[in-house]
């Protein structure tokens, strides 16, 4: 149906305004990151890369950044490995307790992170793992495994079982079938699952805030703590760096396998 011009214009205007609202904080963070003053104010007085320089000179931020990257990488790898194994069990075998496992891998979706955070404090404190790498990695594994199981399972389900059967018939052992046939076919799902797990870990704030303090603080928790006292443009610069990393990861993923296919 064709719409009258004024109506079309009003509708487009509304959509445009809503997009502005939706993207406002990101745009503003970007603008402010080029400000140089010690306090938060708008508009910026002058534009420079001063805040970026300060961020890269801030030892706390730098070490938190490397920690986040390391934790994200371990979580991504771990979650996707464990998730692939579970997915294989769920899609290729029938066993007693299948329903329970199925429930277990979606349940974390429906428990708020803040609730899980309190529980994790209790558990990790018992093991002496509060504010340690193993502690935060474990915590992040719990919330990322459901995602990796989901993406890898979807890949596995789309693999034509007859291809696997054909390989078996032609003399491949079950292990070889997996290694030579199934794994290459589900690689996009595995990469996507790993990247999603990385991104979640890299951005996770709520749970991290419960269990990290100085030794294992990640970038988002570092930002949060900083924001409780100060809102100077350094944070903006740091935020932009954080955004750019996420965007870069997604673009690489899109280039690599096509994001739409993967998620």
């Amino acid at each position, binding site marked *: 149906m064709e719409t009258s011009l004024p109506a079309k214009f009003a509708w487009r205007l509304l959509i445009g305004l809503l997009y502005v609202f939706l993207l406002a904080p990101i745009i503003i963070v970007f603008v402010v990151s080029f400000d140089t003053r010690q306090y938060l104010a708008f508009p910026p007085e002058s534009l420079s890369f001063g805040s970026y320089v300060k961020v890269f000179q801030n030892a706390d931020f730098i070490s938190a950044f490397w920690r986040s990257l390391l934790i994200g990488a371990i979580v991504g790898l771990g979650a996707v490995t464990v998730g692939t194994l579970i997915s294989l069990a769920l899609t290729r*075998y029938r066993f007693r307790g299948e329903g329970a496992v199925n429930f277990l891998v979606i*349940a974390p979706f429906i428990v708020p992170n803040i609730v899980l955070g309190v529980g994790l404090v209790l558990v990790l404190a018992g093991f002496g793992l509060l504010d340690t790498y193993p502690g935060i990695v474990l915590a992040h594994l719990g919330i990322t495994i459901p995602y990796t199981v989901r993406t890898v399972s979807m890949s596995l389900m789309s693999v034509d079982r007859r291809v696997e059967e054909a390989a078996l018939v032609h003399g491949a052992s079950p292990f070889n079938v997996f290694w030579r046939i199934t794994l290459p076919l589900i690689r996009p799902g595995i990469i996507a699952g790993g990247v999603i797990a990385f991104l979640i870990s890299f951005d996770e704030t709520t749970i991290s805030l419960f269990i990290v303090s100085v030794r294992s603080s990640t970038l988002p928790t570092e930002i949060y703590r900083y924001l409780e006292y100060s809102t100077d443009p350094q944070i903006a610069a740091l935020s932009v760096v954080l955004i750019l990393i996420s*965007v870069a990861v997604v673009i690489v993923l899109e280039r690599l396998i096509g994001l739409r296919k993967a998620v």
Partner: protein
Amino acid sequence: MTTSDRKGNRGILLLLLLPGLLALGVSFVAPLLWLLRASFSTSALGGADGSWTLANYADVVLDPFYWRVAGNTLNYGLTVAAFAVVLSYPIALFLARTTSRWRGVLTALAIAPLLTSGVVRTYGWMVILGDQGVINGTLQALSLIQTPIRLSNNFLGATIAMIEILMPYAILAMLSGFGRLNTQLEEAAAMLGANRLKVFWRIILPLSLPGVITAALLVFVLAISGFVTPRLMGGGRVFVLGTEVFQEATVTLNLPLAAALAMLLLVLFSSVIVIYRRALRALEA
């Protein structure tokens, strides 16, 4: 690779499941059990060394402060959900119906904020709504106001920021729930004499309702369990369950109380999901 329960498969199955079950056991099942135990514990650190008590729940239920917190939380969740849904609906509708070749880009743009940490976007809102922020700065520069308007460090700021932060979720949920929308149905209705308004009320709205309900639930549930945004944007003046749980667990270090509050949140959360399922089933019948 067959799908039977034969003996040879037992070993493989164990190998496949064990790492995952262990990981989820430690990072998900144990925390919930410990949480439950702690909420009934007398021990200050919520350990199993304490004896059983209902005192933590009593503390919560008997303190009018927590009633107010519960009320605030509900109010916060509902307000954020209502606005996020209303503001996301046009975008989702637009994206679902447009045939523009920019559609892919615009969809990506609408959900791209998900790639940015909530902390970062909260910071963005602090810059926008702060006393010397974008809005106050602009209004003052235009001499429209002398003293800044209070837009942050209060409920209003925490609400505005949370609405925006959760909108991408709402848009995603709506887009996946708009499957039954179809321009031909709108054309058919118009041919039968329905004007634009009636086409919207009788065709577009009912067909998009499942997506809208899902979006509302998702936003509500995320809003009532959030604490980063209410805490940073509320400037310590917004008390919702999320902020209180965090406060008790990490600042006051009263873990049993934090556990009791968290359990309360979980109950609230689950009841909303149950209501949602009922609503959706009623809609489908």
